């Protein structure tokens, strides 16, 4: 258990720091790379939670596809790639207060509610096959809906981004 906890601690620290850097850095490409770090760290945490399929998807979809998309977006909008720009608006103090409020109240409620709940370590472990069984039986309709959504998003993105 200790090993797990240490692992969690290290990963969580990396994730949080990367996330903070991501929203504060002035370089947009750096921000994208910090996001990669966050996503990868989360993937590792999924492994820790025995969710192998989610971890795989995380890596494939997020780090593989989404990040590439982001980088393309950054390039296409001609952001100053190496340069430094004022990335944070003048209203950042308000944003900070709001996010602190939200974070604070959420953390407080979580502490109050789940203060000492332990993760059950002896529960069933779901492998990819179990996930697919569930997806294609109980959640077949949402699954189809998500498929259609992806298709619609695909077409929508093409329509929007087309030059003419």
């Amino acid at each position, binding site marked *: 258990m200790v090993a797990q906890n240490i692992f969690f601690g290290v990963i969580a620290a990396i994730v949080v720091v990367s996330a903070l850097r991501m929203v504060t850095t002035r370089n947009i490409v750096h921000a994208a790379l910090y996001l990669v770090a966050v*996503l990868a760290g989360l993937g590792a945490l999924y492994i820790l939670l025995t969710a192998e399929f989610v971890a795989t998807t995380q890596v494939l979809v997020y780090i593989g596809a989404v990040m590439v998309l982001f980088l393309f977006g950054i390039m296409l909008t001609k952001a100053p790639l190496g340069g430094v720009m004022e990335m944070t608006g003048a209203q950042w103090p308000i944003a900070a207060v709001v996010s602190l409020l939200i974070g604070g109240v959420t953390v407080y409620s979580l502490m109050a509610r789940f203060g000492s709940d332990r993760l059950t370590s002896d529960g069933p472990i779901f492998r990819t096959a179990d996930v697919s069984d569930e997806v294609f039986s109980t959640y077949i309709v949402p699954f189809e809906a998500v498929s259609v959504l992806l298709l619609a998003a695909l077409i929508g993105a093409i329509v929007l981004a087309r030059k003419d």
Partner: protein
Amino acid sequence: MLLNQFLILGAVLFAIGVYGVLARRNGVMVLMSIELMLNAVNINLVAFGVQHGVVSGQVFAVFVIAVAAAEVGVGLAIVLLLYRNRRSINVEDFDLMRG
């Protein structure tokens, strides 16, 4: 391991994401912050799934990832379009919601 480890991590990431959405001026950055928030939710889903011993948590996490991918696609397309029309992706330059 405590359940709360994951939940609080999620909460912190969510709050950071909120900050990013509210404070950042760059449209792409805003989208990235939204991704952060979605991921924060995903941790919660998976952690609760483990806690209750059900597979639904993972299933929903996968769904969220899929939806996030769709959202990024459309979102970036919109940013691109805006850039093409306005030569700027600074969200403060846009006040289309103005009455």
